């Protein structure tokens, strides 16, 4: 069974869920799904389907890089478990902390360094890099 067949439900859901710039490629027995999800809920849904097909993401045959498309000026909510989100001088955990955004605080996206680090600004004027995993575009 090809990987595209194995993950057909996921690919279909990505198409139906409004993922733009969707790319599905197979290379060296790994399936790569890239695209821009319309919102965090759509991304979550894809990850739930992924987990259904491959419980606990064990197979190592899929890299799903589908992220929420967010442009500069977009508001994003700090979605940490409960803690504050560190705002750093540069994109990396080795960078000094220059501020903090509270849990559930709304911040403004300035630019995306990559899919892992976003430059943000808080309403208090603190600006720096935060880990994108804990930011949910509104």
């Amino acid at each position, binding site marked *: 069974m090809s990987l595209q067949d194995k993950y057909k439900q996921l690919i279909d859901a990505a198409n139906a869920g409004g993922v733009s710039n969707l790319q599905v490629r197979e*290379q060296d027995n790994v399936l790569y799904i890239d695209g821009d999800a319309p919102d965090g809920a759509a991304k979550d849904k894809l990850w739930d389907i992924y*987990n259904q097909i491959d419980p606990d*993401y064990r197979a190592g045959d899929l890299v799903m890089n589908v*992220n929420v498309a967010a442009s500069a000026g977009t508001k994003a909510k700090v979605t940490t478990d409960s803690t504050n989100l560190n705002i750093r001088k540069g994109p990396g955990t080795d960078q000094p902390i220059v501020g903090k955004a509270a849990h559930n605080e709304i911040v403004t996206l300035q630019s995306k360094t990559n899919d*892992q*680090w976003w430059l943000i600004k808080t309403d208090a004027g603190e600006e720096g890099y935060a880990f994108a*995993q804990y930011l949910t575009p509104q």
Partner: protein
Amino acid sequence: MKLTKILMAVFLSSSILFFSCKPKDANIQANVEAKLKSMPGISVSVADGVVTLTGECANDAAKDEATAAAKDVKGVKSVVNNCTVTPPPPPPPAPVTISPDNALMQGVADATKDFPDVKAAVNDGVVTLTGSIKRADLKTLMMSLNTLKPKKIDNKLTIK
């Protein structure tokens, strides 16, 4: 009698003129086909001076060219070009970009920072995860690692 002769003469001469001005459909077809020799996918049919082209054209420009060439042939009243243009095949997808190991290591360190029981190794684009994690945190970690453009993620984590 004389009048009949004159009329006959007029009729004959005019009919000769008439036919000479109107090449037969078969001739038109042969001439159009000769003109379109360089476009082998096109079939030509002619009815009362109306040329119909069918078949496949390489592109829109070739289709227009065929229409113009057929119109140019003597005796052609009009040209109906029913040729289909075959769309070009889509370009092959770009190969998947895999992050270099040093960038991956940096990204993996950031992604696993909040999960101290997770150990990660990076080798030739492959991220191997060992150690343990809570099931509730697994999705968060995997989402984060999947954005780093690794070659693959080998998840050997023990789920608590």
